[in-house]
């Protein structure tokens, strides 16, 4: 074959490329990721100073707000990671908000009305059984959807549109429209709050542990490249990337540790544990909230699933060319069932976080979440035509959506205005993304 595709290192065009291009190539930084981080920072700084000039105080870039932001992002973020798989395989799931509500009600009834009767109130098994049941219910509903889509030949749009109505209705029927509360006290910790965070020491363990893993991965990646005789990154680029990632981990730890418990809670905590509060108050750090850790764990596991396993490879293959995937011997129908089951299970996990945070289960929980989840995945670079998407993108997308929401609340936009802005941003983000993809092709 004689078609020439000059990607040789001696290509003169590359020798003349600018310092920025050389930097990007050496670090192998994803320009999309950079764009999203830049957009996020712009939103944060923008709201911060907008608040400062409009209302006289800047509330956005404070430990308290950022900590709350991280907690609020968790529920949507967890589901967005699953939506990536669904959208990558050219499907859609409109039912996740309703599945969340349904799963939350099932867990609520289980831990408030059923389990205490058999185990006794406050039994340590209650929250564990409830969580497992919640995730399982979500996964079962999801696999039912997946089954209808794959083997029933009904478009995902229709199946999950039906699911949107059915499961919201079922949630109402189970609880007869009542709000179920209070949830189990251990269960409630999964939703965050001062007690639902791991404190300063725990956060340092998480932050430094993350650093250790980042360094290990960088080292192993380099060793692996050398083993197969691939071109190595320049050493400075390795140091820069590893350093940057560690800085983010440690920065996040410092941030969550600088947000103290509110005075009232400190007083109650001190009274309960016989601690005398010193003059000037006691500084007890929140640290990472448990729902945020759940989101991070989900993000890591889903990233491994998508990039390091056959399952993930097949998800992308089906998205890129369903027929080719089939001819390669991939059972695409069964994959669809598994993908929707996973999405449902993640909606169940989100139900845990959302209902624990609220301290109760209502049948309205998760209403309209499907739209935010889809928007998060799409803003995060998941292509609706299939085949392209990343987990970290979806989580960042969720963070962007939540940042907009929170920011507008802080500067006093009313709900109607918030909807206008969020809707506009979604459309604009996809437009810019299309432009970007066109430009890099």
């Amino acid at each position, binding site marked *: *074959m*004689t*078609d*020439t*595709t000059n*990607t*040789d290192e001696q290509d003169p065009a590359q020798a003349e490329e600018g310092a920025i291009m050389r930097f990007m190539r050496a670090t192998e930084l994803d320009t999309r990721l950079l764009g999203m981080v830049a957009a996020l920072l712009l939103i944060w700084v923008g709201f911060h100073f907008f608040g400062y000039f409009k209302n006289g105080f800047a509330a956005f870039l404070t430990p308290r707000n950022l900590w709350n932001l991280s907690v609020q992002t968790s529920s949507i973020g967890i589901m967005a990671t699953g939506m990536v798989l669904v959208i990558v395989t050219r499907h859609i799931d409109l039912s996740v908000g309703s599945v969340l509500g349904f799963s939350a009600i099932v867990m609520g009834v289980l831990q408030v009305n059923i389990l205490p009767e058999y185990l006794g109130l406050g039994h340590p098994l209650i929250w564990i059984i409830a969580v497992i049941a919640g995730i399982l219910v979500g996964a079962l509903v999801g696999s039912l959807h997946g089954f209808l889509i794959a083997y029933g030949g009904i478009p995902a749009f229709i199946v999950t549109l039906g699911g949107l109505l059915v499961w919201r209705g079922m949630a109402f029927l189970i609880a007869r429209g009542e709000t179920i509360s209070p949830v189990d006290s251990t269960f409630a910790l999964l939703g965050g709050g001062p007690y639902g965070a791991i404190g300063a020491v725990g956060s340092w363990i998480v932050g430094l542990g993350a650093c250790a893993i980042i360094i290990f991965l960088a080292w192993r990646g380099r060793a*692996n*490249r050398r*083993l*197969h*005789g*691939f071109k190595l990154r320049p050493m400075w680029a390795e140091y820069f990337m590893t350093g940057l990632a560690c800085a983010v981990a440690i920065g996040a730890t410092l941030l969550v540790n600088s947000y103290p418990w509110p005075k009232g809670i400190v007083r109650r905590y001190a009274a309960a544990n016989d601690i005398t509060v010193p003059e000037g108050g006691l500084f007890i750090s929140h640290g990472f909230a448990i729902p945020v850790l759940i989101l991070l764990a989900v993000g890591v596991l889903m990233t*491994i699933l998508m990039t*390091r*396993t*056959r399952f993930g*490879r*097949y998800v*992308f*293959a089906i*998205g*890129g*060319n369903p*027929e*080719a*995937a*089939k*001819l*390669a*011997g*991939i059972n695409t129908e069964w994959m669809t069932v598994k993908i929707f089951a996973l999405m449902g299970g993640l909606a169940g996990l989100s139900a845990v976080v959302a209902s624990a945070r609220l301290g109760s289960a209502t049948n309205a929980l998760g209403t309209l979440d499907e739209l935010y989840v889809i928007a998060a995945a799409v803003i995060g670079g998941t292509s609706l035509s299939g*085949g*392209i998407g990343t987990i970290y993108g979806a989580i960042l997308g969720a963070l962007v959506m939540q940042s907009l929401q929170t920011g507008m609340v802080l500067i006093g936009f009313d709900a109607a205005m918030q909807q206008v802005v969020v809707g506009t941003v979604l459309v604009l983000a996809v437009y810019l993304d299309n432009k970007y993809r066109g430009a890099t092709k």
Partner: protein
Amino acid sequence: MSRAENGTPLVDIRNLSISFGGIKAVDNASIDLYPGEVVGLLGHNGAGKSTLIKILAGAYQADSGEIWINGEKAEINSPRDARDYNIETIYQTLALADNLDAASNLFLGREITNAYGMVDDARMEAETRKIMARLNPNFKKLKDPVSALSGGQRQSVAIARAVYFDAKIVIMDEPTAALGVHETQMVADLIGELKKQGLGIFLISHDTREMMELCDRVSVMKNGRMIGTERVEDVTEDDILSMIILGKNPRDQAA
């Protein structure tokens, strides 16, 4: 009829039929293939060539008939089964996932995994590099999605699949349809190479002249039926064309 037709055929397809909604796409067709042989399938669009070959590749299941491989009856119910019999198919549509890179496509469905069951991308890339150096030394875009590749490069990824996994039987459905002159020549050379290694090749094409050059025998299909199979040295291009158009074997009439 002495050289190829002694010994067991590599593939022996006997009386295969398949219908789609009342239309007999393949109607009682039989064909065989010997090691080191290239058998061409000719016919109009919709004559049943691709359907017949897709049954062998496991993409369709026949309504009736048998497939024998190396003298043993074979059960091929899925693409995976076909692979277990060392049958590799290079489809007209290329059957590549455009969003994945060459290595991911080459190993699709047969990924190399490490001790923890994780896909070993580095090793797959290294293997791809090796096989590409052999098949297409100009191939450099290993990291790019295959949508960024030229038709010839994409074709070489598809062919690399067959070569890498030690196929014994290769099915090529219009392998040169989307290619330029040089790339077509590369495919022709490769077919010669595979033949020398003792593989059996089914080749589907519209190009009668190309088929006369590449094949040992050609079979002509029309309306799902097998019109006839002839050694290329026994027939002229005109004979073949009349078989394709009229659906009759002129040699039968002469005899």
